[in-house]
């Protein structure tokens, strides 16, 4: 099983090159929107990639440490970082050179090599605090292969009329015969490894949580008395947001069945809030690695990849997500399915809707939460996805199709198998 990892490179943009950089990124963005972009797919380990210009204007709230203009390059990639970076700098060299020419410290035109390009990206790459993968272990290649397998079977089922009498088991067998006769699908004879819930870790985490109840209660009371009740009530609503900013965000939304979300927020400056944030990151890490391994993050069934990244001496936090559907649905899902998780994490950032004991208010204060979320969002200059027509549910379903095809199923199981198409 090939593991997926987050890469994030945060490099300083040359003072006089910010506009030029924006222009160059726009060219790539427009070719992506028109469907004429052909470069990114040359990086076979690349799931999602994005370039975002992060400057003072990206911050809705006053940064707690000074910020300059920086370029974010983020990918979700298969396998080890070194190989991925090699692919990036050798297969899309033009992009990398064009873009990083506008950044501080990039090697000059005459002296560029694979090695020094790589070490540049390496030098500015930073760690993610928490990372979620909706289809753990599925490489780009596997996702494409399994989609082709599903399409082939779908066509086969559509064209073959077995009549009422054929049992599900018979049809399942017929499908397997069809696939076996097709050398293109030789690879599918081997079942895909799928990560299960790591129950031991989950239970250990649960026990630890139970053991920590007195501490959690004490912490919640402390936070309530010394922090929460002093937080200002937020009154900003969606209609109040700056039109120009919202329109800039909407310009690049809903072009595909999937969308991206990039956000930057400022942590509340007190030690206890920063500690609380770290604790929530730890919880998210444990849950994302051990429990949320079947395509649902905190019960949200539409996220492909998401991550939190602390930057600027752990004072600011970036959040990235790649998801199915549109913003309204995504944020609605977040509130409906896991408002508590969002509240726990983001209540440690400034001007988040007021919470009580980290449970009520916050994300559940729908109007103000949506406005907070939209106003802390940052326009994404370039966003690439190699499989924009597949939902995360499709991807996970395709793997199940592949694996169930190889199993000897009883009638009930075969019926479930056939329902997957």
């Amino acid at each position, binding site marked *: 099983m090939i593991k997926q990892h987050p890469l994030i490179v945060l490099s300083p943009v040359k003072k006089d090159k910010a506009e030029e950089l924006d222009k160059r990124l726009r060219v790539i963005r427009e070719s992506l929107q028109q469907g004429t972009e052909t470069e990114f797919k040359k990086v076979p380990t690349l799931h999602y990639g994005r370039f975002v210009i992060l400057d003072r204007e990206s911050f809705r709230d006053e940064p707690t440490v000074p910020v300059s203009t920086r370029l974010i390059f983020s990918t979700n990639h298969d396998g080890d970082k070194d190989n991925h970076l090699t692919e990036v700098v050798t297969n899309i060299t033009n992009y990398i050179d064009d873009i990083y020419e506008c950044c501080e410290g990039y090697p000059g035109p005459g002296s560029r090599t694979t090695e020094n390009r790589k070490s540049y990206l390496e030098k500015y790459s930073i760690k993610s605090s928490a990372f979620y993968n909706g289809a753990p272990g599925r490489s780009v290649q596997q996702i494409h292969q399994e989609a082709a397998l599903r399409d082939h079977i779908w066509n086969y089922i559509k064209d073959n009329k077995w009549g009422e009498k054929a049992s599900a088991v018979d049809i399942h067998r017929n499908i397997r015969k069809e696939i076996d006769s097709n050398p293109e699908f030789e690879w599918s004879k081997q079942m895909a490894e799928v990560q299960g819930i790591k129950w031991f870790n989950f239970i250990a985490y649960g026990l630890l949580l139970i053991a920590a109840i007195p501490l959690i209660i004490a912490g919640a009371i402390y936070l309530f008395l010394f922090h929460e009740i002093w937080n200002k009530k937020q009154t900003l*609503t969606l209609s109040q947001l700056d039109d120009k900013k919202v329109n800039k965000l909407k310009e690049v939304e*809903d072009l595909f069945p999937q969308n991206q979300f990039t956000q930057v927020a400022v942590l509340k400056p007190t030690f206890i809030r920063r500690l609380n944030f770290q604790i929530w990151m730890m919880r998210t890490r444990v849950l994302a690695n051990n429990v949320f391994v079947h395509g649902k993050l905190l019960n949200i069934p539409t996220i492909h990849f998401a991550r939190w990244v602390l930057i600027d001496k752990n004072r600011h936090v970036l959040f990235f997500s790649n998801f199915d559907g549109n913003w*309204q649905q995504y944020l609605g899902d977040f509130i*409906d399915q896991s408002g508590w998780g969002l509240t726990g994490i983001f209540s440690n950032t400034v001007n988040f809707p007021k919470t009580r004991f980290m449970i009520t208010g916050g994300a559940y204060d729908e109007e103000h939460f949506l406005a907070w979320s939209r106003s802390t969002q940052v326009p994404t200059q370039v966003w690439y996805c190699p499989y924009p027509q597949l939902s995360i549910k499709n991807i996970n*379903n395709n793997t199940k199709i592949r694996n169930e095809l190889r199993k000897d199923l009883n009638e009930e199981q075969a019926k479930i198998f056939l329902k997957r*198409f």
Partner: protein
Amino acid sequence: MTPLELSEIQAYLLNDYKEMGSSKYYLLQVRDATAAKKFLTNIADTITHANATTGETALNLGLTSNGLTALGYSNEENMHSFSREFREGMVTPHRQRLLGDFDSSDPSNWQWGGPNNEQVDVILMVFGKNESIVENYFESLKQKFEPGLSMVHIIDGKPLPNEREHFGFRDGISQPVIKGSNVSPAGNNNDIDAGEFVLGYKNEYGVYPDAPLVKVAQGNLEILSDNPGGYKNELVDKPFKDIGLNGTYFVLRQLEQNVNGYWSFIKKQTVDENGKPNNEEATKIAAKMMGRWPSGAPLVTHPDRDPGGDNDDNSFSYKKQDKGGEKCPFGSHIRRMNPRDQFEESPAWVSLKLTRRHRIIRRVRSYGEDFIGSAENHAPNGEVGLLFGCFNANISKQFEFIQYTWANSPKFKRLYDDPDPIIGVRECPVTGTKQNFTIPQKTANRVIPNLQSFVTVKGGAYFFFPSVTVIKFLATV
């Protein structure tokens, strides 16, 4: 539960005027703001509110954001406090993508409300027992509104014949009931907090919906109430006045129905080796797409045949009665528009809660010949269609969400390439994408491939439906 101020709320929100055999929506433009405002003062007390006894006629009124500005409610900050969807209107590049208004439905082809049409400021909705009553009533109104307002377009409408839309299906069965509205509860998850449909009341999240407030003094503020959300002008420590209170937003879309194309397409799926279609089978496929039989009977309770008559059964649920979609396909129209207890894979009680946050109050009327299509008879004379209207307090979370996420998105639930077969199909699909309808069976699913679009948008706009008091207030700005 806060009782609604019924004598403030325009009646169309609570009353579908089914007994009014004729209606005309007059789309008007402001020519002279002073005269137009005088007209508002004149008619404010004749606007049919929800506490009025229904007579021979009814009158309701809405405004577009252009209309508000044209009347003189033009302060930027005040206008800015209206919801973004309303302010921008139905026609923007982004909204075109959300609503799927492409090809023949492209706003540039619309008959009204589009970029090539005259600006619409005001909608005057006149209802009456018959057409002559409507026209006489309108003539009397016209004398009052000219020269302040001029006519841009007239949309004729009438109740659906036998409550069936033109494709032939009984319509409007599942309708939310607003809590606090004095209407007897509908049960089965259809009783919804007022704030989902009326501004100034708490919604299903337990908060007040985003409402337009008077940020900068304009007009006679004395007659307005303070906003219930407690938003204050910090400088003077006084609550803002609320012009949304007891108002709501109205979405109107004129949808042409290609009845002949629709039934011909479905019948084509049933032809035998001699090329002869099977009408019974065609009706069944059509019912699978709708989720109800022509009589209205739900497939969940009547999976095999139409019991006939008029059937308004709305007491079913999906998870308990049809988890695998073998009776009512996941992709069917009604299963998408109201997923009931099976919203995603959440537990039933969560699904029910979430569904309540994405409901609309539909106010549809039909236009064209009184024609009820069927597999046997599907060639109406001239254009027929549906005047789709709906009320919601949050256009983005309700109407647009339903249209985009539930109807247009082919990824609804676990589906791959299945848009809503009635209202979500693109005329020219995006290159490389399919448009199917999947019918779950006992064993292998049946697929109706290459769906075609039989509904074309001919016009549309978002309107603000102010309270009676706010109509009076707008006459003073």
